[in-house]
């Protein structure tokens, strides 16, 4: 039953000067597909490597399936690990790579042959068993690496940016394939990626990390709909941020926020913030309504379209509001009319689709910084 538990895990590098992972607590359930996301340098890979035993934590405990593994070498942890650079042994062919785990674990020959065949058939590369790694394409190599990790019999699969080195198209195809394998085989998987859309697409739950700490853990839906902070609101999906001050309460669950240029808009209250508090409203580009000319919408703001970009599925508008703030609005390209640059427009949003956060101590820009 490989659930994974991290208790107060901490790791520093360079004699304690660089804190890579800071007091992380995490519980990954059995048979769960879990993703660790965050910008580069946030500590997600270090966390994964500590679970694998490739890096030793300074403090804290790591459990795999209720077994304390913090002191065990990687070979005794019963894990499968997939590396971004595939790490197929160049001195062996595909077959020897895949059966490496069974070989070094001294499994019976017959069992080894069977597992090797099954695993290679599973990733549709059995007929390439005699190939050497450099004869394969990137996607094939990663499929071999995946089957190699699975052939060792582990029920916990650790994936370290497994798709990072692949072309965009293959990346999206392979991520669904990996998820299907994990689910078909009833495995627990922890998938590290800096690509939030990849994490959203494959995982049951996601932890967002920044600067060695976990900011929020939740299902893709929760993270998107109820981000608990400005950083998460911006990192999972995309958000516009409007600065303002709370003027007064409005109804049961609402507040009126005065934006720059004395525009008053209504937002959902988060309960704790009082009148006069400086706040930031996060609104997703796809949450806005957009109409040409001056119209009366809920929370309407007027402005001019500065740029239009056609991006296939979406059209992306950059709008300069009359209070000089810039807002990104995204509309599906197949629904409704297109607006052009220099058009005067009105945008609006419903209070339920805005998220209100206290203004960060170090400023908005510092809070959003990726590195």
């Amino acid at each position, binding site marked *: 039953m490989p659930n994974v538990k991290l208790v107060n895990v901490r790791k520093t590098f360079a004699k304690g000067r660089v804190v890579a992972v800071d007091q992380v607590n995490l519980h990954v359930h059995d048979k769960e597909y879990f993703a660790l996301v965050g910008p580069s340098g946030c500590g997600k890979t270090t966390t994964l490597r500590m679970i*694998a*035993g*490739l890096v030793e934590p300074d403090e804290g405990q790591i459990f795999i399936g209720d077994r304390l593994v913090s002191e065990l*070498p*990687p*070979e005794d*942890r*019963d*894990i*499968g*690990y997939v*590396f971004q*650079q595939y*790490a197929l*042994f*160049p*001195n062996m062919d595909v077959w020897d790579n895949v059966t*490496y*785990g069974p070989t*070094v*674990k*001294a499994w*019976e*020959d017959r069992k080894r042959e069977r597992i090797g065949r099954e695993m290679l058939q599973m990733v549709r590369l059995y007929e390439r068993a005699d190939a050497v790694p450099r004869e394969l394409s990137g996607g094939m190599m990663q499929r071999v690496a995946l089957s*190699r*990790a699975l052939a*060792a019999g582990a029920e916990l699969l*650790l994936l370290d940016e497994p798709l990072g080195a692949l072309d965009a198209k293959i990346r999206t195809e392979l991520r669904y394939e990996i998820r299907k394998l994990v689910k078909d085989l009833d495995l627990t998987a922890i998938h590290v990626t800096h690509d939030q859309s990849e994490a959203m697409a494959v995982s049951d739950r996601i932890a967002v990390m920044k600067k060695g700490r976990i900011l929020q853990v939740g299902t893709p839906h929760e993270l998107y709909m109820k981000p608990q902070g400005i950083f998460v609101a911006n990192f999972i999906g995309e958000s516009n941020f409007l600065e303002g001050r709370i003027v007064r309460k409005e109804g049961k669950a609402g507040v009126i926020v005065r934006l720059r240029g004395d525009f008053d808009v209504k937002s959902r209250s988060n309960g704790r913030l009082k009148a006069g508090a400086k706040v930031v409203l996060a609104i997703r580009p796809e949450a806005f309504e957009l109409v040409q000319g001056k119209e009366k919408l809920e929370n309407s703001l007027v402005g001019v379209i500065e740029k239009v970009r056609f991006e296939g599925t979406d059209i992306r508008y950059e709008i300069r509001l009359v209070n000089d703030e810039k807002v990104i609005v995204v509309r599906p390209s197949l629904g409704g009319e297109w607006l052009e640059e220099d058009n005067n427009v009105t945008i609006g949003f419903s209070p339920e689709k805005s998220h209100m956060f206290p203004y960060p101590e170090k400023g908005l820009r510092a809070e959003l910084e990726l590195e």
Partner: protein
Amino acid sequence: MRLSGRKLIATIFVLAVLASLLILVLLPTFYLISFTITRWNEVYTDVFANPLIGDENWHQILRYLSFSLRLSLIVVVIDLAFGIPLAYFLARKQFWGKSLLEDVVTLSLVIPTSGFGVATLLTWTGVSGLGALIGRGVIEASYVVPIVNVPFLMLFVHVALTFPYIVRTLQGKLEDLEPVFEQASRTLGASALTTFRKIIFPLSIPALFSGGVLAFARSLGETGATMIVASIHTTAPMAIVRWVSEFKLATASFLGLLLIIAATVAILIVDILLQRGGRIKAPRFSLMPKIRGKLLKVEKAASGKPRHIKDIVGLGAIMLIVILPIFVVVASVGAYWSVDPDTGRPQGSVLYQLFGPPNYFATLMDSTLISVITAAISTYIAACVAIPSVYFIKRYRVGRIFRYILRIPLIVPSSALGLSVLLLWGPSGFNLVSPGIWLIILTHVVFSVPVVMEPTIAAYEGSGIPTYEGVARTLGASPYDAIETVSLPMLKRGILAGVILSFTRSLGETGATFLVMGSDVTVPPLVVNMAESLATSAALFSSAYLIALSLVLLLLFRMVTRR
């Protein structure tokens, strides 16, 4: 017009490079072959059908050659045994004193060998070194290793002087090797030792081969230290030196030819093996399942705590055969300073032999001057030839062949090389240069060119120079400007490293210099002469002096190569 002008310059450049390579390096290297062939009758008579002794010379050649080959092979095996763990240790671990340890490894490469020979002899034999502890020599020069019949001291000296070739090539390879392969193997359930056996070792075979062939060649040609610790034994290069001094040129050149062939065959075999790229596929021999399981278990157990033992064994061996002799020689200079501690006679003291009637100090200073002048001039000439050669080799397809051929002077035993130069330019050949300082320079240039070239080529290959030169050209630089402003500065470290190595090698060279020096004696042969004429204290002092010189050069080398 402009284009054809450029082409003309390019042609002149290529021809000049080719001509200098041919005259200064290739002709001297291969002249011995043509000499032996053209004078075959003479050689045949001397070696196989001497009217006085019949084929006794041939039997001697066989004896010396088999002794040398046996010695070199054993040396390589021992080098591997110590070198592999040490290289792994240096490549993978960070620890206090690591750079010091790397310096010790490099020191073995730059130390003048005759000085080191004196140090080793002193340390193990007689009562002056380690023997002081037990009242007699620990290992006398005549003691041989049972079964293989090779003297201990010769083995010590050769291992000390050749293990760096294994360590440095393997360490470089391991540092380039991505740690993910090891990590992948560990996550798949293999212990550290199993990972070494199944992943790291197979991947480092090419590096082991190329390091091994260099170590083999160096051991096969080593003369300076070998002559000092030889006692009654004779190696093939020593035989050449002796026969030349007895004017048995035909016999000497035949043995030289055999040595050149042995070294070339060694490098050829390795190259053919490596040519097949990473395709060296060990035959898939499968052990019995039971044994396989046992092996894995043993490896697993040994991967635990006691793994430090192998590190300590390697380090201890280096201490014993490299560092200890250096300390002993320095300490002995102090002990022998004013009086011979064994006999109590002042005639045996350092002061008496240097400044008294023997006046070795003046001789030593003369030799130093000759050594420095020859090293400086030959290095300068070598750099002038080597740097354009690097461009030639990297830009023209035929260059690859030249690169290949130019490795041969590096591995040919230097006494064979010296003999070749002597026969080519000396009185019995073209009679252009008599033995003396200029013939030494011509000899040293032969191996100095490849010595300067190797690190320069390495720098060239690691730097992406063609791209940067291309960038410079798109920004408006002429080809010459691009070389001067972009690629030469990028090669600077490589060139400097090569120049220092070449200078050191020239300064410490013994085997070839013996044959071509005439009355212009450089320091390393002087040390051998002192040791042979039993001027122990003078030899001691000169050895310490040589070692000190090489330490200074090592420091320079370190400053240049560290980033």
